[in-house]
């Protein structure tokens, strides 16, 4: 008679399985979170050196020397709900009208001025506004222009983080 080996899982084996499971789960958590496929990669093509993180901009706003010219280039409705104090609303830079308003606003501004553009309407990879705005500002010679990097949306990445916020027009 053939005796089949009886599989008994000892404590060591159980620990091994748990460690392996946990390790793979940890690796999975470190992987980039998947997002829906997008046909708009524009914002992601803005060079990293031309981006400014929310925490950095919040600190810049506290410094009394040389406050940047901040311009929201997205939705008026979202701007009215919440915007960065001192920022101006121009209009969606995805539209020719919005870009023309932006161009006119910057006509009298020194090319050495720090200009910060932001939107926050949608997840970064889907934003239709920041790249056209950056392209325009860059073409006008604003070498110190920055774009506020908003990963998810203005609510999640600015308001919920407790950074200064204003309402209304």
């Amino acid at each position: 008679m053939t005796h089949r080996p009886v599989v008994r899982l000892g404590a060591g084996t159980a620990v091994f399985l748990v460690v392996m499971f946990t390790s793979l789960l940890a690796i999975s958590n470190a992987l980039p979170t998947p997002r829906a496929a997008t046909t708009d990669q524009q914002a992601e093509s803005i060079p990293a050196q031309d981006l400014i993180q929310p925490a950095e901009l919040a600190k810049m706003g506290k410094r009394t020397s040389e406050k940047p010219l901040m311009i929201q280039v997205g939705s008026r409705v979202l701007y009215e709900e919440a915007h960065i104090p001192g920022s101006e609303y121009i209009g969606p830079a995805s539209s020719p009208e919005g870009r023309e308003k932006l161009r006119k606003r910057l006509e009298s501004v020194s090319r050495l001025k720090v200009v910060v553009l932001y939107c926050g309407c949608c997840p970064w990879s889907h934003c239709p506004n920041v790249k056209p705005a950056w392209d325009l500002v860059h073409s006008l010679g604003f070498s110190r222009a920055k774009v506020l990097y908003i990963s998810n949306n203005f609510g999640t990445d600015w308001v919920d983080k407790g950074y200064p916020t204003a309402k209304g027009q």
Partner: protein
Amino acid sequence: MKRVWALIVAAGLLLGLAAVYHHQHRPAEFASAVHPMAPDFDVTAIDGKKLSLVDYRGKVVLLDFWATWCTPCREEIPRFVQLQEKYGQQRFQIIGISMDDSIEPVRQFYGEFHMNYPVALGGAKLGELYGGILGLPIAFLLDREGRIVSKQIGPTAPGVFDREIATALGR
């Protein structure tokens, strides 16, 4: 003995791969279920008719905040049209609240995308009523009593709303 160890290693790998798959395919950011009453509102739909949320009490409602310029919204809305067709006979209703600045692009979009549910302009005040609509898309699922049972922020993976709606309908 070697076969036993091979089985143990294989089991561990399978468990780990299952964990990876689950993480990679989880739905988009999902606020934990909260059940406050959805704030009532009165707006005018793009067809000129009055739209009051309270009139939909007794139905499961998907309240979708969107805009014509929002790329993820443009991807979601065809799926919403399908959901309205699928569940519309089971006391389910989608309501679209556009956060556009004006109604003209919304009307054009409505026709272009063959939307089959009521749509109205929202505005900043309605956005504030719902805790601040500071990014799109944002969708609230309401039960038949008008309570918010879920909130989806950002693009959602296909199938998420279908499952949530089916659950809310009590299937």
